[in-house]
C-alpha cells in the first residue's frame, strides 16, 4: 500500500497524473470534437473493405457490443451497482426480435401470420412479423421493465450481494431460455386457454438450443431490405445506435440524474440524507442500462439470424463487463474503446492465434482457453491498472490512491 507521508494531497485537477485522461479535456473537445471525428471516420470505414467481408461483420458486432457495454457502464460505472447478469437483457432483447420478427409463432392467424409495417419477403410468411423499429421499441420496453424488476430485490443490498442477485437473475433467464422449449403456451395456468386459441396447441415459449431461425432482416422505410451479403447497411445501423447511445450517455452523465448516480455510488448514506431518492435513482440506472442491452439484443438477433439459448451464458456478461473494465469504469470513451478492443480480440485476434499452441507442441486450441484469457485480462487489469485504459477522473483518483490514504482508510475502504 502506498502512503503519501508528509506530502499533501495534490489539488484537484492538478496536471500531474500519469496516462491519458480524456475526461480532463475541455467539454467541447470531449463532447463535440471527438464524437464528430469518431463518427465520421467510423461511418466511412466500411467503404474501404469488401461489403461482405468478415472484417465488416466483426465491426458490426463491435458496434452492437459497444452499445451493450455503454448500457452496462451506466449500471456499473455511473451508479456503481455491479451487475453480473447483463446477459439477461441481451436474451430478452433477442427473444423480442425472435418472437415479433420470425416464423416462430407459425400458427398465428390461421397460419397466415400477423404483419405490421413489413414489406417484401417477410410479409408473405406465417408467424408474427413486425417492423424492426417497432421491435426495437418493444425490446426497449420489455428490457426496461425487466431491468427494474431485477433491480427491486437488490435495493436493500450493497456490493457483493448485488452482484450475486443479478448473476442469479441472469442464470434464471438463461436456464429459462434453454428449457423454454418444454413449456407450452397452452399449458400456462389461467391464460393458457386464450393463448392456445391464438398460438395453437403446440406452441412453446422458446426454441431452446435449436434456436429461432431464420429471423427477419432489418427492414427500414425508404431503403432496400438488408441482406446477409451486404453488411454495410448493418454497420451503419449499428453505428447509428452507438451514436444515439453515446448522446444519451453524455446527456445523462451530466444531468441531475447522472450526478445522483455518482452520489449514490460514492456514499449512499450521504446521498440519501442530501435528498437523493435512492430507490428511484437506482431503478432508473437498471432500467436505462437494460434498455440499451435490449436494443442491441434485438439488433443482434436479426444480424445473427438466430436466437439460440446457448448464446445466453454467464460468459457473455463477463465479456461485456470486461469491456467496461478494460476501458475504465464510468468512462464513456473508455467503454467504447474497450468494446471495440475486446470484440476484435475475441473475433479476429484469438481465432488467428488458434494453432499457435500446437506449433509449440502444446495439445490445445486457443479457442478452448478463451475464458482463461479473459480471466487473466480481468485479474491483470485490476492489479496493474484498475482505473482502465481511459479512466474517468473521479474513478482514477479513487483507484490509484493518489489522495490521502492512511492506515485507517485501508480497512474502511472495503465498506
Amino acid at each position, binding site marked *: 500500500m502506498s502512503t503519501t507521508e508528509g506530502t499533501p494531497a495534490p489539488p484537484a485537477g492538478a496536471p500531474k497524473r500519469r496516462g491519458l485522461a480524456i475526461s480532463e479535456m475541455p467539454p467541447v473537445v470531449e463532447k463535440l470534437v471527438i464524437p464528430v471525428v469518431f463518427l465520421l471516420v467510423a461511418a466511412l470505414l466500411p467503404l474501404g473493405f469488401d461489403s461482405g467481408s468478415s472484417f465488416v461483420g466483426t465491426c458490426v458486432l463491435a458496434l452492437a457490443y459497444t452499445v451493450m457495454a455503454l448500457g452496462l457502464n451506466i449500471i456499473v460505472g455511473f451508479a456503481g451497482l455491479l451487475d453480473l447478469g447483463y446477459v439477461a437483457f441481451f436474451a430478452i432483447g433477442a427473444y423480442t426480435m425472435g418472437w415479433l420478427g420470425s416464423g416462430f409463432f407459425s400458427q398465428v392467424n390461421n397460419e397466415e401470420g400477423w404483419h405490421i409495417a413489413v414489406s417484401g419477403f417477410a410479409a408473405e410468411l406465417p408467424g408474427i412479423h413486425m417492423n424492426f423499429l417497432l421491435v426495437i421499441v418493444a425490446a426497449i420496453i420489455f428490457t426496461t421493465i425487466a431491468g427494474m424488476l431485477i433491480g427491486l430485490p437488490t435495493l436493500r443490498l450493497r456490493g457483493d450481494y448485488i452482484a450475486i442477485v443479478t448473476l442469479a437473475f441472469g442464470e434464471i433467464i438463461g436456464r429459462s431460455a434453454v428449457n423454454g422449449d418444454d413449456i407450452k403456451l397452452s399449458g400456462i395456468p389461467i391464460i393458457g386457454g386464450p393463448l392456445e386459441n391464438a398460438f395453437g396447441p403446440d406452441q412453446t415459449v422458446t426454441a431452446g438450443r435449436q434456436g429461432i431461425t431464420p429471423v427477419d432482416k432489418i427492414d427500414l422505410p425508404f431503403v432496400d431490405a438488408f441482406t446477409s451479403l451486404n453488411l454495410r447497411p448493418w454497420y451503419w445501423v449499428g453505428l447509428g445506435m452507438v451514436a444515439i447511445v453515446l448522446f444519451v450517455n453524455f446527456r445523462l452523465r451530466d444531468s441531475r440524474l447522472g450526478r445522483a448516480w455518482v452520489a449514490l455510488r460514492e456514499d449512499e448514506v450521504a446521498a440519501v440524507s442530501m435528498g437523493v431518492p435512492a430507490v428511484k435513482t437506482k431503478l432508473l440506472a437498471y432500467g436505462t442500462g437494460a434498455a440499451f442491452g435490449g436494443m442491441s439484443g434485438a439488433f443482434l438477433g436479426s444480424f445473427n439470424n438466430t436466437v439460440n439459448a446457448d448464446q445466453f451464458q454467464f460468459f457473455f456478461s463477463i465479456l461485456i463487463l470486461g469491456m467496461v473494465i478494460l476501458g475504465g469504469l464510468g468512462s464513456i470513451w473508455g467503454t467504447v474503446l474497450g468494446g471495440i478492443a475486446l470484440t476484435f480480440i475475441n473475433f479476429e485476434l484469438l481465432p488467428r492465434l488458434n494453432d499457435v499452441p500446437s506449433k509449440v507442441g502444446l495439445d490445445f486450441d486457443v479457442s478452448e482457453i478463451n475464458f482463461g484469457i479473459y480471466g487473466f485480462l480481468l485479474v491483470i487489469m485490476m492489479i496493474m491498472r484498475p482505473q482502465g485504459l481511459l479512466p474517468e477522473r473521479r474513478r482514477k483518483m479513487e483507484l490509484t490512491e493518489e489522495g490521502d490514504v492512511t492506515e485507517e482508510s485501508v480497512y474502511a475502504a472495503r*465498506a
Partner: protein
Amino acid sequence: MRDAVSKYGLIVVLLILPVVYVIKDLTSEEDNLSRFGNNLVDGLSNGAIWALVAIGYTLVYGIVELINFAHGEVFMIGSFATASFFGFIGLTQDTSVILLFFGLFLTLFVAMAASGVLNVMIERVAYRPLRSAPKLAPLITAVGMSFILQNVGLLWLGGSPEGIPDLIRSQKELVDIAGVSITHGDVLAIAVTIPLLLVMTAFIARSRLGKAMRATAQDPEAARLMGINVDTTISLTFLIGGILAGSAGLIYALYQTTIWYFQGFTAGLVAFTAAVMGGIGNLKGAVLGGFIIGFIQQLSDNRINPAWTNAIVFVYLILIMVFKPSGLLGEQTRDAG
C-alpha cells in the same frame, strides 16, 4: 407487518416445497412417506457437499468481506485431484476393502492439500494486492480467477463430463429402513463431513489460531494492534476453506462418478446460496443452509424436473435476499443491511 415478513418470511418460503410434497404423498394412493424419506436422505448427503463448500465462503466472507468467486473452482480442482490420484495409485473397483480404505484416505489428504494450497495461492496472487482497493476490484479479480481455473480444468480433463471409476459403488444400498434406502454414497458423505465439521468448529472455537481468525474477522486493525499477524491469519482462513472444498470435491467425485470442469461454477453458486441462507459469516448457518439446499435440489430433481433445479435454487437465492438478507442464523451485516 414488515417485522413479521422479515422474521418468518424466509422460513415460510423454505417450507413451501417440502410441505406441498408431504401433503401430496400423504393424500396419494400409496399413503406412505418412503419417497419423501428417500428425498430427505439423498438431500442430506448432497447437502453435506454444499455444507463443506459453503463454509469456505462463509469463513472468507467473515474475514475479508469478499465473495470468493473462485471457491467453486477450488472445489472442482479437488474433484479433479481426486480422480487423477485414483489413477495414479491404481485404485479400482476390485481393490480389497482395506486397501481401498487407506487409498481413499490418502486421496482425501491429497485432494485437501491441492485445494487448500490453491486457495491460499489465489488469495496471495489475486486478492492481497487489492486489499486496500474498493470492493469492486477484488470481486472482479475473483471472477477472473474463476475463469482461469475453469480453463485449467478444461485443459486437464477435456471439455466434456468425464466418468470416473465407481470405487465405492455409491448407489448400492447398504440398509433399508422402512422403505428408505441408505446407499454407500450417503454413508461416505456423512462419514467424511461430520468429523471434519466437528474438528473445524473446535479448531475455530478453541485454538489460538482460531481465536486469531475470529479477532481478525471482527476488527482487522484492532487484531493487528494486539499482535496478530493479519496476513497469516487470512492465509490460514483461505487454507481451511480450501481444505474443506477439497474434501467436498472428493465426496462429489465418488458420489456422482462424473466430473467436469464446469461443475465448480454451479456448485459455487449453490454453496454460496447455502451460505447466505444460513447467514453469511456463521459456520453453523452454512452447514444448515447446505443441508436445506441439498434437500430442495433433491425435491426438484426428483419431483419437478432436473433441468429446472438450478433455476429453482437461484429463485430461492433471490427470495432469501428479498425476505431476509441476513439469513436464518446470521447477524445483520453491513452489506446485507
